Each structure stands twice: as structure tokens, then as C-alpha cells.
């Protein structure tokens, strides 16, 4: 409301200048007055909840209270304005000589933008998601084909024809629902465009990375496959979550990274418990295609001699287990 005269009384009673219908506000809650030097003074009258004070916040500020005034206290408010929290009601005070923040550009993810920007979009960017989608379907089909025996009839393809579209649609549908919840806009196509490249990346990695590791005879690379897949999945989730919560990109990034690290930690701990190593497969099981065999070939001697330090390691582990059990046995007896 416009303030036309000072002092301004704020409260729940009807004889105040500014009536606030909030049960957490006192009958006569606060008084705003202008001092002799032109500064604005806020005094809190007889109130249980007091007044929360946030200073100089722009639009969309989080409004975290900088100060809290109890009954009887007063404070001088700055010329840039203030946000007052009375009970459940937030009031923003704007003064004539307030310095305005510049206009902020709308992000492309917000609804309504695509209407304005349609003219700017090239046909190529419209084609890109389609190409990605086709590539994903083609790749999945190729993977499925390698699993089938020759002469398999059409019914063997049904699982693929049904599962790939359904998975993509359900995945993007759930995220679109979340968008609807937070942004009031069921943005299915937006999520689809975000999801398809990452899904393609996941499918490609799962099929090609182990082969690459096998061709180079690098078991370390091979053991990294689940980690890489997890990273790609985390990127996918981060992209989609940022699309749902556009104002909180940093929080989303940190949150997704934390979850991914947690997942890695849990899986590594589990692997240590059952397999005594970082990974759940003790050896690289993918065998390289003969044409792509680039890795080095060692002699049998090297392998056989390498068993000695391995046995020493195992002996240490066995000893540790034995000592642990003996302690238990002594306790039992």
C-alpha cells in the first residue's frame, strides 16, 4: 500500500493504518515513523513475536532475517528499503530514493520463453534431438541383435520395440510431472531433449568402453566402467533436475554429486566386504576382438612369478581373519 502520512501504525486491530489479518500479529504490532533527519525508524510495540528484519533484498531474495526486534525495541531502517516479517506476513518497504536493480534476463528454461525465441531457433537445433533419438534406438537395436541367434523370428524383437520407447517416455514423463509441480508447465519435450543425448552416451559407453579396455588389455579401464556409467547417469539427473528447479542450479549440482559419491562409497564398501577389492569382478572378462587386439603380450613366466607377491598378500589377509576368529573363540570359551 502507499504510505501517505507518517507515523504508520501496523497491526491487527482495525484502527491501524495498515491492517494485517494474521493471527500471529499483535493488535498494535509496530510503528513506522520518520525522524527529524529524514531517517525511517521502526519501533516494535507490545508484541510477542516481534519483527524480523531483512535489509536491502531484491526480487526473489531469500529474505533471511538479518535482525530480529523484540517488543519495545527500535531500529533505524536503511534508505535502500527493508523486508519486514510480522508473524506470517512479509512486508517490503520501498522508499522513493531506492536504487533499482537492473532488469534480469529470463533464462531459456523458464516457460514462456520459447514463444519469444522461436524466430531465433535454427532448423538444425530442431533436428538434433530427433537424430539423437534415432541413434539411441538404432544402437539399442544393434545391441539386441547381437544377443539373438540367427533366424530368430519377429517376436524376439518385441521386447526391444516395446521397452525402449516405454522406458524413455516413462522417464521423461515423470520428470515432466515434476516440472509441472514446480514450474506449472508439463515440459515433456524439454526433458526429452535433455535426456536423449545422455541416454545415448550411456548406451554407447556400456557397449564400447569394455571393448576398448579389452583391446588395450587395460583391466583398470575395464574396472572403471561402472564408475563412468554412474557419472553419466548423475549428469543426466543433474541436467533434468536443474531443468525442474532452474533457480537452484548450484544446489542441485552439489546434491547430485553428493548422492553419486554416496552411491560409490556404498558400493565400494560392499565390494570390500565380499570381494576384498574395489570392484566386484576379480578379472576383466571381456575378450578383445582379434582384429582389435592392441594390448601387449607378456610371457607366461611373468604371470607365474607374479603369483608370489599375490600369495603373500593373501596370506596376510588370511592371518588377519585367523586372528579375528581366535579372539572370538577365546571369548566364546
Amino acid at each position, binding site marked *: 500500500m502507499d504510505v501517505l502520512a507518517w507515523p504508520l501504525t501496523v497491526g491487527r486491530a482495525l484502527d491501524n493504518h495498515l491492517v494485517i489479518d494474521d493471527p500471529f500479529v499483535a493488535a498494535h504490532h509496530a510503528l513506522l515513523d520518520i525522524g527529524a533527519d529524514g531517517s525511517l525508524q521502526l519501533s516494535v510495540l507490545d508484541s510477542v513475536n516481534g519483527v524480523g528484519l531483512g535489509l536491502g533484498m531484491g526480487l526473489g531474495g531469500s529474505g533471511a532475517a538479518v535482525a530480529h526486534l523484540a517488543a519495545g525495541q527500535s531500529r533505524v531502517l536503511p534508505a535502500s528499503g527493508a523486508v519486514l516479517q510480522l508473524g506470517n506476513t512479509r512486508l517490503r518497504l520501498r522508499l522513493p530514493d531506492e536504487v533499482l536493480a537492473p532488469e534480469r534476463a529470463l533464462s531459456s528454461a523458464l516457460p514462456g520463453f520459447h514463444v519469444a525465441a522461436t524466430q531465433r531457433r535454427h532448423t538444425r537445433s530442431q533436428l538434433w534431438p530427433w537424430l539423437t533419438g534415432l541413434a539411441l534406438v538404432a544402437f539399442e537395436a544393434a545391441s539386441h541383435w547381437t544377443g539373438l541367434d540367427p533366424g530368430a523370428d519377429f517376436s524376439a524383437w518385441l521386447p526391444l520395440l516395446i521397452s525402449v520407447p516405454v522406458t524413455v517416455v516413462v522417464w521423461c514423463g515423470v520428470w515432466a510431472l515434476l516440472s509441472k509441480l514446480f514450474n506449472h508447465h508439463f515440459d515433456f519435450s524439454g526433458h526429452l531433449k535433455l535426456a536423449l543425448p545422455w541416454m545415448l552416451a550411456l548406451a554407447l559407453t556400456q557397449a564400447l568402453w569394455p571393448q576398448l579396455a579389452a583391446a588395450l588389455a587395460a583391466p583398470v579401464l575395464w574396472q572403471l566402467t561402472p564408475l563412468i556409467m554412474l557419472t553419466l547417469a548423475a549428469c543426466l539427473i543433474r541436467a533434468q533436475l536443474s531443468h525442474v528447479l532452474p533457480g537452484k542450479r548450484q544446489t542441485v549440482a552439489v546434491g547430485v554429486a553428493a548422492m553419486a559419491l554416496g552411491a560409490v562409497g556404498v558400493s565400494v564398501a560392499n565390494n570390500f566386504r565380499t570381494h576384498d577389492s574395489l570392484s566386484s569382478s*576379480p578379472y576383466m572378462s571381456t575378450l578383445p576382438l582379434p582384429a582389435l587386439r592392441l594390448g601387449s603380450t607378456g610371457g607366461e613366466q611373468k604371470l607365474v612369478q607374479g603369483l608370489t607377491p599375490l600369495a603373500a598378500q*593373501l596370506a596376510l589377509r588370511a592371518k588377519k581373519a585367523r586372528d579375528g576368529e581366535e579372539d572370538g573363540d577365546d571369548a566364546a570359551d
Partner: protein
Amino acid sequence: MCFTRHASCASRGFETNSVSVFFVLICTVLALAAAAVAPRAVAAEALSAPADSGKSAASAGQFEPAAATAPAVPSANTNTSANTSANTAATGPGQRIYERTRPRLLQVRTLLKTQDSQSSVGSGFLVDEAGYIVTNYHVISQFAQAPGRNRLVYVTVDGQQGALQLLAFDIVHDLALLKPLDAAPLAGRGAISLRPADEPLSRGARIYSLGNPLDVGFAVAEGSYNGPVERSFLDTLFFGGSLSAGMSGGPALDDQGRLIGVNVAARRDGEQVSFLVPTNPLRALLERGRSAKPITAPAWAEITRQLMAHEADLTARFVKLPWRAAGHPRYVIPVPQEQFMRCWGRGSPQNSRGLQFERSDCEMDSRIFVSGSLLTGFITVRHEAYDGSKLGALRFAERYSASFGNEFTGRDDRLRTAPQCLEQQVGGTGLPLKAVVCMRAYKRLEGLLDVSILVATLDGAQGGAQGRLDAFGVSLASAQRLSQHYLDGFAWTANNKSPAPKPLPTPTPTPVSR
């Protein structure tokens, strides 16, 4: 290389597919035969009666006639026929042997220290006038591993009971030597004499096995002597009679009541296929055990020592034997000789559209019982040869890798650590191979390992072979020897060797024309 989509893999459980019932039957038979716990182990569970038999100790004697047993003079009657004469006055050999041997026959029980309930039951017999008692190791294994928590008790045919001490054992041959704490109740009972080694028994002779099957009561089981088991690493005698659980450790006697062997095991998937430990290992055990002190601490060190000696012998004999040819047209795949192993083979069905394969499994009968959950001291070798010519290179590669990954190498459990593997591409004799060696250490048996050597050929785009050798309970040196021996067994066949590089042609001097 357990190819689950086209075969039933014993280690992975049974998977049905659309192939014929005949194929299913073959798999069932093989699963029973190849994956069956070895004769000794079947016995381990079978011949030591279950703990919850519910019978009290005194009931052991309730089926016995009250007649006093007078030691009889060995009868001159050499009739070894199983059919006793119709004359009621004359008694058959089985009755005579039982009457004479009855005082020397015992039931050996393992009881928990704090309760009277038995955890393991077997048979035993007096082998010496001084009161030494023989039984199987697997009957007293729980006591040997935890003497503080168990106690051994004997029960005679006429109901006498007393505590036992463990003096010595031979885990490889599954024998144990015991002595009663108080020798008085067993004094004057005599002993079962051993048949001299220079008097071999002929195949088909009647022998009588005594024991207490399933804690039902002392019994005599008649059967034929069928000589030593062929293709067995350890000396074992084949007894053509029925041995049930609880008869482990009992004596098997010839028609004159002399000891031929000690009951040890039976094959549950056959009928009247049972096994005895011959007398030679028993003599050796008696020699060293007579003066031994009773065992009062867990005997892991001694168990380990005996297993080490066994595995050294096994590895030495195994490595000395040359590999057999598998008959593959392209590769030389090592298959062990059938001297102490038994091999089974099978192939994919004829009209299968997908991957064709041929599989071979070679296993040893002799497995050493260490405890109810641990059999060790043996080697198995198996391989699969694949033909993917009906598929393309990509499809074959996918199935080939899947098969190589479908190998169970174990997890961390109570007995052994988790497997640690070393892998390398080797190209020794010209054939490029992927070799993986995985080892697990035994937690209780210091210095013993389980080693699995997995090998896959890498040169074929539409065919290949994968092999696996498993050695259980071997030392590091043996593991290294076996790895070397197995890897050396892979090569190209003579007519498929990659052509040697041709020497460069020597330039012929061009004649200078005049």
C-alpha cells in the same frame, strides 16, 4: 566358461531351455556324477549319522542278543558262500565273525562338552590289546578342530561307555587313532588282527563289514571284495556292499575275521558301491600314533602339514603326466590323462542355430575331507570349444566374452579369503591366449591355496576355446607349477600353425649382355 544360454552348467544351477528332454537328462546325470561330492565326502555326511537321531546312548545295545560271547577258535570251514547251510546247528561265516568280533566293535560318538546330545556318530574297533581304537578322521573331525568344545565317547556292543582321547590321525586316508581314557573296561577284549599284506584277496571274495548304521544298532553287512578302485589317486578298496551312515570307521573283515579295510564312504547315486581304506595306511598310522600324546588343542597345524605333503605328491604326479589331445581340429587343448581322473564330455545339440560347443569335464574321485563344509586336495580340469561359424564375428564375440565372464571364482567366506586375480595376455607357443590366475588363501590352513587358472584363445574371430583348471588345497609352488603346466598345454595344431615368415628371396644376378 559356463555358457548359460545354451548349456546347463552344474555350478550355476539348472536352466531350462527349449532343447529336448534327452539333453536335460544328460545334464542331470552329469550334475550328479561330475558335481557330486566325492565318495569320501558323500560318506562324510552320509556315514556320520545326523545329530538329531534322537536315540539315547544305551539303546545301541538293545538289539543284541543276551548270549555271552566266548571267543571262538577260527573255524576250519572255508566256505565263503553267502548262503548259510540249512542245518540250524552250523552257523554261517557272518554269524561266526560277528560273535567273535563283537567285543572289539565300538560306536564312536562326538558329544558337545556341555550337553549330552551327539553331534556325530560313527563306528570303530579295537586294533590292539593295549586298547588302541581305529575309526575314520571324519567321524572325529569336529573334536580334532575344537577339542575344547567337544568330547569323544565310545559305546560297546554290550553297553559299556567311556571317554576317548585322540592320539593321531591321517587326514589324507581318513583314519584316526584313539585310546580310551580308562583302559580297564576294554581290557581283555582282544583286538582285530590285520590280514597280512602278502596275502592278497581275490576279487569276488566275501567280506563282512561291521558297524552301527544310523545309530540303529550294530550290524553286519556282507558284500564282495572288488579290488582297488581304478583311476583313484589314493589307494581305496571297492566294496560291493551297502554301507550306511554311521558305519564309518567300522572294520571290514575277511571270512577269517581279519581286517581287510576300514569303512569310509559310499556312492549314494549307485547301489552297493562303497569304499574301504586299505590296511597299509593303517599300519603306518599305528606306527607313529602309538607313542603320540593325546591331542588337546585344535589340530590345524597337523592338518595343514598332512595336506601339504599330499598336495606335493599330487602336483608332482600330475605334472609328470603329459596332456592328452582333445581332438580339436585347430587347437591343442590340454586334457588330463585318465590315470586318476575321470572325464566326461558333451556337446551342443545338432540342430542348434546358435553357438556350437563341445565341453569336457575331468574330475578326481579322491577328495580330502577336512570338515563338513570343506573338501580339498584335488584337481579338476574342464574346457569348452566353441564354433561360432553360424553366427557372425560380433555375435560370437558377445557370447564368447559372456562365457568367459560367467565363471564363479568364489567370495570371501568363513573358510577362504576372496579371490585375487592376475591376468595377462600370453603368446608363448605362438597361440595368443588370455590367461587369468585367481587364488584364494585358506584362513585356517596356513600356506594352502585354491587356485583357478582360466584360459581363453584370442586368435579366432568365429571360434575359440576356453579352459579352466582348478586346484584345491595346494601350496604356492604347486600353484605356479600347475599354471605353467596348464598354459604350456595350449597351442595350435600342427596343420594350423601360423606360417613362418618366408625368407626374402635372394636377388639373382642379371646377366650382363655383351
